[in-house]
């Protein structure tokens, strides 16, 4: 009799444990999906971001970057700088805090023709981008004042600061 009881106990543990495991995995997948969508929203917000000062002149970030890629004022090929403006940095940081993502790191990256690029982030981009848990990318066309057509690649990555990511892409 005892062997039947043990078998029943074993089957129960497997069934219950399996249900709990699958439930947790589903919830984890949903959370990952939400993070990826959040990264997309943050990317769009970053491109839409606009302030009216001497540098930005009420242009959106994507308009300003397009103009700067066109006139050649962005000269960096492999940027490790994390600053665009204090206002952009502060607003992004505030928005992370206000949407329940206090302590998250982000990288906003734009690359124009010739690999010239620009990075805004709250942590030096020393991690491998492809390992970021939430990443959003898009390529946007821009017509320069002289009629030249360029494409700008944008990327936004997001990860919690307590998550350790590989520093290299190996």
């Amino acid at each position: 009799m005892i062997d039947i009881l043990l078998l029943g106990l074993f089957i129960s543990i497997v069934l219950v444990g399996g249900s709990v495991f699958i439930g947790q995995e589903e919830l984890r997948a949903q959370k990952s999906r939400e993070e990826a969508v959040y990264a997309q929203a943050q990317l769009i917000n970053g491109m839409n971001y606009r302030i009216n000062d001497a540098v930005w002149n009420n242009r959106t970030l994507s308009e300003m970057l397009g103009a700067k890629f066109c006139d050649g004022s962005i000269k960096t090929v492999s940027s490790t700088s994390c600053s665009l403006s204090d206002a952009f940095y502060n607003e992004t940081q505030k928005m992370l805090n206000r949407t329940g993502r206090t302590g998250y790191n982000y990288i906003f990256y734009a690359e124009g023709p010739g690999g010239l690029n620009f990075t805004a982030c709250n942590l030096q981009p020393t991690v491998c981008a492809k390992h970021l848990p939430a990443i959003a990318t898009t390529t946007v066309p821009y017509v320069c004042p002289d009629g030249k057509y360029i494409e700008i690649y944008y990327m936004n990555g997001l990860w919690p600061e307590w998550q350790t990511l590989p520093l290299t892409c190996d």
Partner: protein
Amino acid sequence: MSLRLKGEAGEELFATFFVVALVFIFVFSANGVYGNFMAGQAQLYAERSASSVAETLFFNNSGMLSLSACQSVSAAYALNNVALKITYWKNDVEYACETRPLETRSLSVASMPIFVTENGALYPGRLDAMVGV
């Protein structure tokens, strides 16, 4: 005619029934496995529903919502058992535009960053979609 099992066969049959009964009680009792599992499923689907509403509103409006349309747009998206609240900050002072509150307790909230526009100015905001049971 009655069927009587004696010896090892009877004991095993009894043990099988006993285990089945125990598992049944364990699974379907109050706060049992089934109840917890279904509560988890409800939470999961509420999360999906809340994020879906928030995402639809965000992407349909390209991440920018006119303040003048805030009430009408949010009301259009806040359908059955969904409430929306758009909080925005003007010079760090908090304002909000929201639909009716949920009649039941809120089960899940999905938040997205969004911009609110007013007379050409852009204000950072947060879109909260709340789903109840």
